[in-house]
């Protein structure tokens, strides 16, 4: 089934790993909730890219189906995350996540 893939799979996986690391770096370094959510998007995109690369490697459609499931997860995550962000902004008048580091606000 699989025609010889001219793009080496290792390079695609390396690209996904680099993107995931960038997103993880952003989640750990940034203290603004908007940037943390954007970095989470980059990480989810890197995960989806791994599925696409694997699906392309074996010439199957399953990778793209997993990509769609990750897409719906990302959409739900962003909707809830941005709702939480609005609540944090109303409560603390700031987007700094360190101001919300106590469980009882």
């Amino acid at each position, binding site marked *: 089934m699989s025609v010889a893939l001219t793009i080496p799979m290792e390079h695609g996986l390396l690209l996904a790993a680099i993107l995931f690391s960038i997103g993880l770096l952003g989640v750990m370094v940034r203290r603004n909730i908007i940037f943390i959510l954007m970095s989470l998007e980059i990480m989810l995109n890197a995960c989806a890219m791994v599925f696409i690369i694997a699906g392309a490697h074996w010439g199957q459609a399953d990778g793209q189906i997993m990509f769609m499931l990750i897409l719906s997860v990302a959409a739900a995550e962003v909707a809830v995350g941005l709702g939480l962000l*609005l609540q944090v902004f109303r409560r603390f008048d700031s987007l700094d996540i360190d101001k919300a580091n106590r469980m009882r606000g």
Partner: protein
Amino acid sequence: MIQLGLFYMAATITVVASLLAVTRYNASHALIYLIVSLLGSAIIFYVLGAPFAAVLEVLIYAGAIMVLFVFVIMMLNLGAAGVDNEHQWLQPRMWIIPSLLCLLLLAEILFLLNTSSHALSGTVVGPKVVGIELFGPYVLAVEIASMLLLAGLVGAYHLGRRYLLDMRGESL
């Protein structure tokens, strides 16, 4: 060998745009770079032989999800300070790098559309195969995803309401 060059070029653009998105101080600038990064990944998906995933990436990721971010950034920047910020943000030099990256991506997609499908690597898995698989063996996953989206909808509706703020005094 053409697709190799296209792949590495799109990969470079994606990585550079992601790095710039993570390191910006301004949320709007970061959002623009994030959109460029997602468009770059869409090109990568197309080159890898997944055109349906590439279309979904542009439509849903770079379209719908990023519009959510835009809405929230617009909601959080009200008043005169927001207007000053707009003047500060819309400087022409700020658009140079995203425009350049987008133009490179546009050149890539035009080149891909002008060449035959031999430029793609491996086997192309089209939308038809994906749809048959999706509503055949994977129909349970579709149901689970729909429930997840419903839960996200209810959660976002609940969290977006203002009455949570009114209760902060007594029941927090």
